[in-house]
């Protein structure tokens, strides 16, 4: 009984470092209630957006004021550390931008905006938990929270065939992926007797020292890890679990697509880093590669192969796309491939590179989708043909889009270059070590892929600036001031941080502490 009470005490004490999450929980419910007010009021979208921003702001304020010391919360379910805090800021930034984008737009009718914001808050809470989960059960539950909300929001447009299809495909792929992951977790639980991520490495070593037949335990470990990788790979849209991505991105309401392309991807990487790098790489793993800890398989090499497949497939398929949303979907698959390079490097440098890249990626990708929304509202289409002559019709949007696209390619004066530079440095750092030649090959393929991506990004830029308009432009509706502000701010941020990147480096290197339990 005393044992039970001590567990309860831990839970009570943990609430002090759990305030941002509590704010989001109550915020979700508050948004559900706010949704009932101001029916048919002309200022409804503005008021609801203010409410949602308020919730995010309160969560941000509580995040600033919470204790910074790393530690375990709720009996080892989640951890609070610099790593998780960095990702939480990322999610708050992405959610805040999404709220601002969706308020003046036409993707959500005012009557349904309240539900969207409430579900978005719940999703941000799920992302928070994904970034801090240190128990396999919490990983599963938080992924499910994020996924279930995503399924609903992907099909949020009423009577729209594409939206309904997108959410059907999403729910089927997602259900299979989470079922597969769960089955892998059950084997891991059976073999190691624990679900705590922090204890995995120790239990595996104990198992190997216990004199049980090594080959058989190895096989089980490998199968379990492969099955779990499927669940994580689905969240970050890595090949071969990427099939849902283009369809869902195309069918979902564009502001939500924008959020989907950055939020869950970043959270998936947080889970992957915590699992593969934080927990399973022991002190000896720095030289041997962290795979030695798990079944003796060369995991960095396997992730490297995944990375190559993901970026190559993403980039090559993007070449043929004419729908901008699909093009950006394949581009986001390719970017998952670049990010996997950092995971394959399996070093602190690699982790830092992933964090820097994700930070920049949030801004440039949300900005790109904002331009897509803007053009879709003016022309009703997402085809590349409607981007012809955009520079004349809407110079600000065209210039900003060009900045984002060049940044996505990774061309020097823009911030995307900084992110890519650090990713490549992390991989090249590995070249003198064991298996260095393969890292060199990985870096070369990454560079070739960047060159390929330039082709389809430039195609869009050419359409905007050089090509003649496809059809006589209709009278375009006035662009909301909010869009102009957001576009300018994002483009300026991409330019400024492309030239002055020390703050990002300082912040990420201060956030590198991963709580290992």
């Amino acid at each position, binding site marked *: 009984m005393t044992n039970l009470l001590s567990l309860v005490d831990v839970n009570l004490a943990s609430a002090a470092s759990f305030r941002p999450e509590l704010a989001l929980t109550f915020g*979700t419910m508050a948004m559900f209630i706010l949704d009932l007010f101001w029916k048919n009021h002309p200022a409804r979208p503005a008021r609801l957006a203010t409410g949602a921003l308020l919730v995010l702001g309160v969560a941000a304020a509580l995040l600033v004021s919470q204790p910074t010391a790393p530690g375990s919360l709720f009996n080892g379910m989640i951890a609070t550390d610099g790593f998780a805090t960095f990702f939480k800021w990322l999610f708050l930034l992405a959610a805040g931008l999404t709220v601002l984008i969706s308020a003046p737009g036409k993707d959500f009718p005012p009557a349904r905006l309240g539900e969207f914001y409430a579900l978005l808050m719940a999703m941000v809470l799920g992302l928070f938990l994904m970034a801090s989960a240190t128990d396999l059960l919490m990983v599963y539950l938080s992924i499910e929270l994020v996924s*279930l909300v995503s399924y609903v929001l992907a099909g949020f447009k009423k009577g729209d065939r594409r939206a309904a299809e997108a959410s059907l495909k999403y729910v089927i792929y997602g259900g299979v992926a989470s079922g597969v992951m769960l089955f892998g977790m059950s084997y891991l639980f059976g073999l190691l007797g624990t679900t705590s991520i922090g204890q995995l490495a120790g239990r595996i070593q104990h198992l190997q020292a216990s004199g049980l037949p090594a080959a058989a335990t190895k096989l089980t470990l490998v199968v379990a890890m492969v099955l779990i990788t499927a669940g994580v790979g689905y969240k970050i849209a890595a090949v071969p679990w990427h099939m849902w991505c283009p369809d869902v991105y195309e069918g979902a309401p564009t502001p939500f697509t924008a959020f989907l392309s950055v939020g869950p991807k970043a959270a998936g990487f947080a889970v992957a880093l915590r699992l593969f790098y934080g927990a399973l790489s022991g002190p000896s793993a720095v030289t041997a590669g962290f795979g030695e800890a798990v079944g003796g398989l060369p995991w960095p090499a396997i992730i490297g192969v995944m990375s190559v497949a993901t970026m190559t497939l993403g980039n090559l398929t993007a070449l043929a796309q004419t729908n901008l949303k699909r093009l950006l979907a394949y581009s986001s698959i390719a970017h998952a491939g670049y990010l996997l390079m950092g995971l394959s490097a399996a070093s602190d440098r690699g982790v830092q590179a992933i964090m820097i890249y994700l930070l920049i990626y949030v801004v440039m990708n949300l900005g790109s989708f904002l331009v897509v929304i803007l053009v879709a509202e003016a022309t009703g289409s997402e085809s590349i043909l409607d981007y012809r002559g955009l520079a004349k019709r809407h110079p600000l949007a065209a210039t900003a889009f060009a900045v984002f696209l060049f940044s996505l390619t990774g061309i020097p004066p823009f911030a995307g270059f900084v992110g890519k530079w650090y990713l490549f440095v992390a991989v090249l750092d590995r070249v003198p070590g064991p298996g260095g030649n393969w890292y060199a090959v990985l870096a070369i393929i990454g560079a070739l892929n960047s060159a390929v991506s330039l082709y389809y990004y430039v195609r869009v830029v050419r359409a905007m600036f050089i090509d003649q308009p496809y059809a006589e432009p209709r009278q375009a509706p006035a662009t909301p001031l909010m869009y102009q502000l957001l576009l300018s701010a994002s483009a300026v941020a991409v330019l400024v941080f492309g030239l002055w990147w020390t703050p990002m480096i300082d912040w990420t290197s201060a956030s590198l502490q991963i709580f290992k339990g």
Partner: protein
Amino acid sequence: MTQTTGKLLGWILGTALAIGFVVVMGQLAIGPAAQSMVPAPATSAGLTEVLFYVLAGVTIAGAAGVALSHNILYSAIGLLMALLGAGSLYVFLSADFLAVAQLLIYIGGVLVLVLFAVMLTNRITEITVSNTSLGLWGGLMLFVAVAPVLLAVALVTPWATITPAAAAHTTETIGDALLSRWLLPFEVASLVLLASLVGAVAIARKEIKAD
């Protein structure tokens, strides 16, 4: 024309991959693992054993019915059988609470929901489901590739053997555990349910005509 060639190529590639996978797994992983296989302890066929085999048979038959039947109603009945069989097996695993939960939530809730969906979308029974992207043979091939690995994992791994405790009531222990060690997952699960219920209503209700 090119499409059929592409499809053929895909099939050849897929077959080669599956065969290669089986060979590699057999050579590298399962072979060495099987050499150290511990023979399963001999058991006398008591009533428990017989019941286990019967229930396992019911479960697998139900599962096969779900996956292979051409009539969606038969699939639903197959799911009922599989869930009932698995739920009864939970009792043998001294998980009385979970067995009841399975009965109430899965069979009482989920299955009824599925049956409602079947009835509401009644025209689908007329659609032939033989036209598939992977096809029955593709599925069988996948099964052949995956099954040996999973079976080897189940049979060959020396799972830590601890003498199982005598069957006891688990409800109280689970209740305590849910409000102490597993408090956070418990609360998160409640939020998952809230979000998905609101979401399900939001997506399935008819368009609001006002706007």
